[in-house]
């Protein structure tokens, strides 16, 4: 089980949409996910509790946890690349968990 945080500015709108999409992507690649939603401003303090974080806005990486931007899922710009990034991140997190 991969523990996922999906964060946006308010923790309610774009993260909810991204969460729906990420659940679909996880199903497609066969990764079990435990999804949590939150606010981007809390990511730096909470990221350590998750295997991977997805954010819908610009975010400065300052955590050991893998953080991936997914605003492409919302805007539709580079959506295919974003989906690939999500797939890769989920698989990477799953592998990492297995090797623990």
């Amino acid at each position, binding site marked *: 089980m991969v523990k996922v945080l999906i964060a946006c500015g*308010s923790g309610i709108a*774009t993260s*909810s949409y991204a969460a729906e999409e990420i659940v679909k992507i996880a199903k497609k690649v066969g990764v079990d996910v435990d999804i949590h939603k939150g606010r981007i401003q809390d990511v730096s303090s909470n990221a350590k509790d998750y295997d991977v974080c997805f954010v819908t*806005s610009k975010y400065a990486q300052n955590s050991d946890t893998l953080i991936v931007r997914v605003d492409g899922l919302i805007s*539709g*710009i580079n959506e295919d690349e974003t989906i690939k990034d999500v797939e890769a991140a989920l698989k990477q997190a799953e592998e990492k968990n297995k090797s623990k």
Partner: protein
Amino acid sequence: MNGLYVINGAANDWSEAIRLTSGELYRNGCVKEEFYEKCCERERDYPTGLTEFCPVAIPHASKDYVLNQAICVLRLQEPVKFRSMSDVDKQIDIRYVLNLALLDDSDHIKIISQVITCLKDKEFLVKMDSLEGDDLKGFLIDNFFKGLS
């Protein structure tokens, strides 16, 4: 019960545009007075302008400032610049503002999903442009609140 309001208006900048939409939501009892300021705060930190292909912004705020779930759609007389969600240094000419007053219930995920799915469809904007008044309102309710009461 999900409300939808459509207004036409002119604004000089993005905060004026949000003032129009949040004012409409406030007068209809959908949001608290602070909703406007909270939307602006969020917009400064995390802009919600979509893309050149989809000249729509979706400002919103935390559910703490929402009383009844609703969307206010503003059709701008002249485009107003909002910063881009994907690239905060970029400005986009926005023609429609969809101010989202969302509660964290089972409906809101469906609403946001349907709104975003619609906006990704280029034909959707063309259709919005072609409609006025109650026709536009009915069209948006049918699409955004599909499957909801």
